């Protein structure tokens, strides 16, 4: 098919989008089929949490601290220094903590899943599962996507808390705000309209990271090079998707009047 200068049939970008769409649809078909792999699901949740916990924690702490330190001068200029906890907490909860967590997960989990499934594909382990009567899509893909969908929000909530703690330290480097006052100001500034949409979008982040990692790995090209490429492209596409979802999410919350 040809539309203007676009040759749809040979367009690898569009083909890929189509394939990812088909893969996602297959995920929703398979998830309802009998014989759920609970054990593997729990195992994957544990691994995803375990692998990213420290990294997410450290990054969130630094983000909270740095953001606070850097925001202070601007607020001081307007004589609004007392608004520091409120401002920092809103930007952290709404945007920074969820997106940074998702990006770290895209790098760590996306590449991990891409490489793992890729090497299983290349060494015929996925074929071996099929022959032994285990549905590899269900065993490998469904469990990992579900685990990522569940764990990214968990990690992101944890990142929220740690980042806010970093903010507390940041506020107290120059100023004097008591522990109680800080949290009072933080929760005073935050409404459900800030927290709930931010949490909801992390589920989508997690889902996208899981699906892309699995897609890239599951259809990995033969050879070691193929595995490497699966891992890298999984990270790139998943990170990009995180931003796209973020963009869509902000539009929706905007339309709903939650901002």
């Amino acid at each position, binding site marked *: 098919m040809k539309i203007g200068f676009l040759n749809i049939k040979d367009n690898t970008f569009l083909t890929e989008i189509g394939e990812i769409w088909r893969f996602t649809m297959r995920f929703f078909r398979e998830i309802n089929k009998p014989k759920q792999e609970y054990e593997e699901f729990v195992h994957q949740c544990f691994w995803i949490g375990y692998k990213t916990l420290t990294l997410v924690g450290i990054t969130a702490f630094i983000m909270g601290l740095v953001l606070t330190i850097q925001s202070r001068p601007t607020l001081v200029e307007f004589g609004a220094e007392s608004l520091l906890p409120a401002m920092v907490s809103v930007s952290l909860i709404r945007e920074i903590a969820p997106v940074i967590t998702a990006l770290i997960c895209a790098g760590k989990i996306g590449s991990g899943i891409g490489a793992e499934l890729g090497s299983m594909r290349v*060494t*015929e382990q996925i074929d071996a599962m099929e022959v*032994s009567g285990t*549905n590899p899509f269900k065993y490998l893909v469904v469990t990992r996507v579900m685990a990522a969908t569940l764990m990214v929000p968990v990690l992101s909530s944890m990142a929220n808390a740690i980042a806010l703690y970093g903010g507390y330290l940041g506020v107290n480097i120059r100023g004097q705000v008591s522990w109680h006052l800080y949290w009072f100001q933080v929760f005073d500034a935050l409404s459900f309209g800030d927290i709930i949409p931010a949490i909801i979008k992390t589920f989508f982040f997690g889902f996208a990271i899981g699906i892309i990692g699995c897609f890239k790995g599951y259809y990995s090209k033969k050879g070691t090079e193929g595995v490497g490429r699966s891992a890298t492209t999984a990270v790139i596409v998943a990170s990009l998707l995180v931003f796209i979802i973020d963009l869509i999410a902000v539009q929706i919350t905007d339309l709903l009047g939650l901002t």
Partner: protein
Amino acid sequence: MEMPVITVEKVNKSFGSNHVLKNFSMQVMQGENLVVLGKSGSGKSVLIKCIIKLIEADSGKIILLDEPIMEREEEELDQLRSKVGFLFQSNALYDSMTVRENLEFPLRRHWSKQEREAGSEQAVMEALEDVGLAHTVDLMPSELSGGMRKRVALARSLILKPKVILYDEPTTGLDPATSREISNLMVEVQEKYHSTSVIISHDMNCIRITSNRVIMLIDGTCYAEDLYENLIKSKDPKIREFFE
């Protein structure tokens, strides 16, 4: 007369412009060990993967244990696949699992929980003893040598006591002594369970010990089909190539 267990009829398979199987036909009878011989890249692995529908053939007919597998959906194949053992050329051991977990993997789908609790340990040890590797049960595949991995993979494909076994180069990479042991094991399995096998091999010792019949796959078709004893006496240069 024995019944055919595997019937392959006029099967074609190509990858792009690479026509691997061209109107290929063969039959494997109940209780028979059939060896498929052919040059590297001639499509032997593709052939046995088509038989179990890991690769879908383009056209033709494949009947496995009375099931026309090309008309079956994935889900319907599960039950059938439990009756088939498949040894991959690359072994395909799950490298994130121990040897024990590798062997238990086929059981998890086809045995109930009670059956597994009662019998899986024994089944695993028995299968490993058959290939002489009982001491490796708690090791990871990466800690095994190439030949040991092959034997573990063999144990895994035999653990469900399948009716049909498809071996893709079972003795490649093994020393002559182990290779002979494995070949003898394959014959034993055949006699004990009256199973039917398709064996892909280049190893003349293995072929001599295990084969009831040999098929030569050349240029995507069945070039010759005879007993091993007759083929080694053949004057045809294309056949002689393999036996020199």
